[in-house]
């Protein structure tokens, strides 16, 4: 048996995840070394863009860095797990389950702040 997480390969394009042109971001799917190249603002945009493309069904919804995600119902507690996996994959970090709380995931700002703790 091989447990997932052993290798990191971009083998299946995330084609359905986003229409980059729609939101004006073009680097979403780039496989870059975030530790070195991404700054805080870019990180926030990356997470925001992912949240919008994956979890927001109504394209008229205005989602900002501060919009409550979990407490508003945009992202439910089950889906939060996929968001956690995304963050861990993208930033190559491991967030302990005790820290992956609804409060910590409740906005893009709080998510980025959490991620930052494990990047340092």
């Amino acid at each position, binding site marked *: 048996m091989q447990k997932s997480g052993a290798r990191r390969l971009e083998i299946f394009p995330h084609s359905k995840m986003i229409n980059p042109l729609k939101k004006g971001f073009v680097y979403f799917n780039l496989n870059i070394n975030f530790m070195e190249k991404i700054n805080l603002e870019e990180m926030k945009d990356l997470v925001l863009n992912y949240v919008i493309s994956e979890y927001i069904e109504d394209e008229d919804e205005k989602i900002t860095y501060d919009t409550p995600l979990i407490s508003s119902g945009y992202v439910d507690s089950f889906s939060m797990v*996929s968001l956690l996996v995304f963050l861990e994959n993208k930033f190559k970090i491991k967030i302990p389950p005790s820290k992956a709380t609804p409060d910590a995931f409740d906005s893009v700002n709080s998510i980025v702040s959490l991620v930052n703790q494990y990047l340092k």
Partner: protein
Amino acid sequence: MKDIYKEHYKNFEWSISEEELEFKKGNIINIGWYCSDRICLKGKADKIALNYEGFGGIKRKYTFNDVRLAGNTIGTFLRNLGIKNEDRVCLFMDRIPELYFSFLGILKIGAIVQPLFSAFGDESLYVRLENAQTRAIITQRKHLFKVRKILDRLPHLEFIIIVDHVNTKSLENKELEFKLEESLPIENFDIFPTTAESPSVLHYTSGTTGQPKGVKHVHYSLISQYLTAKWVLDLRDDDIYWCTADPGWVTGTSYGIIGPWSLGITQCVLDAGFSAQAWYRFIEKYRVTMWYSAPTAIRSLMKAGDEIIKDFDLASLRHLASVGEPLNPEAVIWSEKVFGKPFLDTFWQTETGSIMITNFPGMKVKPGSMGKPFPGITGVVLDPKTYEPLKESGKIGLIAFKPDWPSMMRTYWNNEEKYREKFVNGWYLSGDRASIDNEGYFWFVGRDDDVINTGGHLISPFEVESVLLEHPAVGESAVVSKPDEVNMEVVKAFITLKPGFIPGPDLELEIMNFIRKKLSPVAMPQDIEYMDKLPKTRSGKIMRRLLHAKEWGEEIGDISTLEND
């Protein structure tokens, strides 16, 4: 002190409920009327029926007269479209007021309500609409894309009714706009003369094999739902009641609409995601007295800590109950510590329509126990081999009930064969296992099949496995439950990959999201394990049992039929 439970049990007749509801055999019985018009006729027209709070601070209050008029208005709209009695009308909405009013409006015209969880993906939606041959769906703009995606495959679906349409968007094939606040309220309305056995609600539930099954209920279910809400939830005239369940599932209709409103009780709805702070604030703000929730939510509140509770005045809480999965003793003890009263566990199912086993108010609470059968219900545990009731206390068997009670399902939609399989030796088999102690308390052990109960949602491993196979990378799949601190259990998938695909975390995320969107977030595997091959019997059947045992650290049992390399 009087033992109320014993007294009720001894002298019980369902006619107690019939008399209180002034129902006589052969009379018209319509849940829509009982939950609105009758309450108004009883002098409570101006009493608040619904305190609604949505995301973004939207607040609404509706009296029972508002509810009555809204039901009439929606009923008239549907009737004008040609929707008639026994047609299926699906509700596919978040917990907005229109959902609650449409529920009553559909029943008032004699049509069948088919409530579906709005987080369902397009595939989950499709199989249920196709099975029920649904004629109309009432939905919101935000969920429309899922309906549009499957419309071509649903020839029976004639009307897609959007309750929050905006003129900047265009309406497509079969789509109609309905705005409650812009519609003329209908004062006088001819309620369809449904009788006891007229179908009312069609809830879908998952089994181990095959597609989800439509559980057909009838208007007479009210008799059970009314009395259990009154006695177990202990609802009283001045109560402010909060049922946290979504009406996409049976708790949200039996006890989130029918039970409280047939009693004329004020209820509150919070249409927002989970947050301990928001929930406590909600209780404080509306002075909630009776709170019916679920173990997953209670465990999430426990996880949020006790400190936060001190910021809120929760003294209004008088009575707490729980449903959906077994309530662990720690949660009962915790609630007693922080709220001054325990959450009382209740056990029932989509098929039973109302509470079957319960910790009756006033009864001694044994933390971790499901309680005892509701008065009027004969509940036993059966020997799994002989299907005879086990006499010895502490022995584990199958939870079974003696038919009939008023809210018992009448059949599985278009699947009489599966329905008949639920009965053996004159007992209804619940599919759950338990033991009974020497005082008659039931103790839950687990499911008797492979169905996964995650956070109170039943997930069919078959359904998830089938959709997994639609992913281009997946060769084979097996889905089991794995233990989870908050949700009791969650979905775990074992998969093999097709040639050319390489396992990795990005693929894992891709597959998780694939299931989340096609089925629902609750069906999404929270863990995916790649396998070179899946364990199979010599006849080629995947041995889920072995994978389940591995996840739960159990004995793997007999593996004589396991295929060798």
